[in-house]
């Protein structure tokens, strides 16, 4: 006979407001097998847990049900308390009478009856709980970092400095990401390259960091502590070991007019190229789509001039498999484009801003390249159309962001600050020019941020106009901006030379595909989701995968760097132990009944089902059955639902337990 203890929590007033907890305790106390039932104001508090421990010992309880909030919130808390009192933690279950009952109902009588039902179901289920032994898995103390922007670089350096090997994978030919594109950074106006390139060089020289540039993640298998990652190294057409980075190939390449993506397509590059002079590694890549050799089979100038003979037209894509224990995802962001909307995209375009057809309407990143000393104009602000210096410049904030109708409802967070910075850079470079900013709100919640914004107005003479722009159109070589000033309450018209749009921050293209490979969740915008918005902001719900930077949501540099270091700390916490404890809520196969159809193997999303041969003593094969690797199993229960012969059972959720729960109703 089991002696079950039931503890009903008031959750302050969250539960007791709508549920008569005392009545629930009294009713549950009458159930068979229940030895002890009580209620308490805060079960999760220290006195609450002590009450639980004391009751287990005094009443000699065999099972425990805590009726409180969601198990996602406090299951671990109570299982730990139960374990401390000497019971197996898996003999404790939670009945959710907060999210599933008190928060969603108003009628006290009905809610109380429902709460009694919920708790009695859990009582029936816990009766059939078995003692589950913990599962330990080994940890591979190497880590993978996806993305070589500032987030990836910071995470990689932190982990590597701790003595663990890091594999850093970057899609582009050089690490550096968007931060390398920026001219100066707010709120201190220090040059982005100056603070970025030393870190890039540190990555390249770090003995513990293995750098894969121009590479992509092909496949991710395994589970926390034991991932196998297949990385596709795209053919660079240049032997990285032989290349000295002298750059002769780039000066001799006859294809010189290819728009450089790093310069937002304003500057030009050759077909064999490094994206920017400070690239790490400083090994060029041949852009096969634009290379004369790959298009016509003639040319080969780069190969002829290369002293060390590094150019290799025959190079193929190669696949490398790396074993790692943890993954940091730091794939960063991309900018919303006001061009006509791509087919099938839920995000709409900006017809009123000319759909990107007016050449002197540029986005913030293009302005960064214009203002950058290493940019295509050498740091001069010049119009893309005719190369003239704009004497009037209009900045428009919230283009794409906070525009539900266009498909994006979030705030991109960095635009207010970078626009303020742009007005300053413009004022420093064009002394007789005038900058205007159309904005809705100035959101500057960071250290020294508001002061920076105010400085752009009070000292750097930017004119901020609260109100949005309804339309832009070309008039001669000017752009007419039709807006409004809502503080004055009138329409405003400005004839300007150039317009800079603060376009929305979006996740990188293909972020969803990578998430599917990794098995992590993402929101409707393709930003990756954290396990808990407040308390687990750098971890994914999938164990062993961590997030850093703007792939999770728009972030500025200080925030990105903090999160990258936080993710690195999480990885180091994982690596601090040789073995990893896992929850033993896993599926088990009853081998006697298994017919080896492997329907379970087909449906398992985690690749946890393996084939196992059963042999007699002479070694003759009797049959092949399914075997669930407890290290890989995530306890989702799909196999249990699928098995035609009912031979897979998920511990803690067996058919017997579920039926007992239903019968309790």
């Amino acid at each position, binding site marked *: 006979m089991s002696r079950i203890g039931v503890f009903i929590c008031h959750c302050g007033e969250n539960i007791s407001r709508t549920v008569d907890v005392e009545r629930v305790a009294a009713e549950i106390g009458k159930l068979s097998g229940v030895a002890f039932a009580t209620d308490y104001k805060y079960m999760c508090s220290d006195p609450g847990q002590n009450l639980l421990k004391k009751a287990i010992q005094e009443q000699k309880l065999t099972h425990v049900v805590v009726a409180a909030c969601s198990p996602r919130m406090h299951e671990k808390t109570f299982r730990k308390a139960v374990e401390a009192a000497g019971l197996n933690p898996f003999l404790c279950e939670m009945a959710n009478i907060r999210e599933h009952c008190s928060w969603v109902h108003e009628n006290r009588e009905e809610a109380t009856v429902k709460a009694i039902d919920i708790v009695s179901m859990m009582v029936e289920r816990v009766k059939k709980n078995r003692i589950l032994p913990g599962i330990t898995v080994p940890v591979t103390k190497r880590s993978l970092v996806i993305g070589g922007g500032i987030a990836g670089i910071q995470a990689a350096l932190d982990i590597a400095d701790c003595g663990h090997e890091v594999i850093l994978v970057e899609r582009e030919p050089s690490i550096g990401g968007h931060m390398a594109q920026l001219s100066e950074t707010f709120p201190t106006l220090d040059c982005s390259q100056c603070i970025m390139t030393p870190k890039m060089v540190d990555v390249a020289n770090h003995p513990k960091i293995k750098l894969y540039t121009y590479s992509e993640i092909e496949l991710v298998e395994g589970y926390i502590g034991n991932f196998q990652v297949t990385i596709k190294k795209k053919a660079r057409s240049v032997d990285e070991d032989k290349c000295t980075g002298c750059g002769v190939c780039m000066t001799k390449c006859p294809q010189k007019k290819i728009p450089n993506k790093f310069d937002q397509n304003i500057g030009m590059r050759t077909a064999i190229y490094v994206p920017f002079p400070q690239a790490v590694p400083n090994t060029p890549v041949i852009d096969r789509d634009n290379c004369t050799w790959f298009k016509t089979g003639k040319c080969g100038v780069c190969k002829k001039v290369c002293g060390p003979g590094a150019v290799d037209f025959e190079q193929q894509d190669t696949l490398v498999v790396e074993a790692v224990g943890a993954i940091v995802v730091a794939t960063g962001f991309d900018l919303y484009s006001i061009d006509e909307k791509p087919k099938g995209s839920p995000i709409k375009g900006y017809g009123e801003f000319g759909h990107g057809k007016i050449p002197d309407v540029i986005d913030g990143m293009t302005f960064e390249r214009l203002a950058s000393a290493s940019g295509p104009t050498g740091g001069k602000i010049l119009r893309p159309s005719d190369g003239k210096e704009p*004497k*009037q410049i209009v900045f428009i904030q919230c283009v794409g962001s906070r525009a539900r109708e266009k498909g994006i409802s979030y705030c991109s967070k960095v635009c207010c600050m970078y626009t303020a910075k742009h007005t300053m850079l413009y004022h420093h470079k064009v002394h007789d020019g*005038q900058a*205007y900013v159309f904005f809705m709100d*100035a959101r500057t919640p960071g250290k020294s941020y508001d002061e920076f914004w*105010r400085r752009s*107005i*009070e000292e750097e003479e930017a*004119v901020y*106009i*609260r109100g949005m722009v309804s339309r832009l159109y070309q008039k001669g070589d000017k752009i007419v901006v039709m807006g409004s*000033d809502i*503080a*004055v*309450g*009138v*329409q*405003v*018209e*400005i*004839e300007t030379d150039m317009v800079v749009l603060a376009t929305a921050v979006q996740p990188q293209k293909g972020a969803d595909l990578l998430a599917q490979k990794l098995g992590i969740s993402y929101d409707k915008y393709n930003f990756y989701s954290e396990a808990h918005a407040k308390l687990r902001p750098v971890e994914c719900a999938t164990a062993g995968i961590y997030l850093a930077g703007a792939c999770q949501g728009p972030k500025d540099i200080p925030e990105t760097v903090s999160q990258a270091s936080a993710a690195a700390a999480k990885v180091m916490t994982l690596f601090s132990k040789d073995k990893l404890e896992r929850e033993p809520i896993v599926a088990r196969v009853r081998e006697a009944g298994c017919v080896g159809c492997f329907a379970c193997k087909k449906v398992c999303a985690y690749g946890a089902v393996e084939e196992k041969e059963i042999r007699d003593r002479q070694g003759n094969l009797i049959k092949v059955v399914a075997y669930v690797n407890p290290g890989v199993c995530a306890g989702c229960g799909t196999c249990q639902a699928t098995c035609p012969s009912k031979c897979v059972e998920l511990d803690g959720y067996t058919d017997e337990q579920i039926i007992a729960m239903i019968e309790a109703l």
Partner: protein
Amino acid sequence: MKKKKMVISQETMDVDFVRKVEALSGTSVRRCFQCGKCSAGCPMATFMEHPPNRVVRLLQLGQWQRVLAGRSIWYCASCETCTTRCPNKVDLASIMDALRKLSWDAEGASKESYVQLANKLFLQNIRTYGRQYEMRLAAVFNVKSGQFLKDLMLGPKLLAKGKLKMFHSKNKNMPEIEKIFTRIEEMRKKGEAL
């Protein structure tokens, strides 16, 4: 003027005028971030076509004509509630003062309230008589403003109480008074005074 579209450019933003206002009032209009607290507490705001915050906003955009064309600056009671409560230390009461002073010479300033006319006549009287001659002030004001019968019935009462005199009396030291006026006129020409 009030609702007319605002065309903004370096030419239409009169920064020099705004600088004058700032110098005269000793405060910066650029500091204002349009929270609206000045207008929230202003006892006269309901009478103004441009509430106090908008006066500052228009100055930020160099659109002083819009401000002076309205009567806001004349309705300001100089109670200084705005100045006291401003979170950004914008001394709006001083700005209003400065605007009233600058409106003397400004083109297109409001004539609606006849404040300037009254001021001018007042000073003319002082220059002519060395002291105020109320009868003439009232008569000329009524004629010039076209309101011939304005406050006419008040005249006999004031006369009876001796507050209003039929004939003027003159200051003995007229040349000294004239000196003051000439000096100020010269200073105004040089730009040393308003």
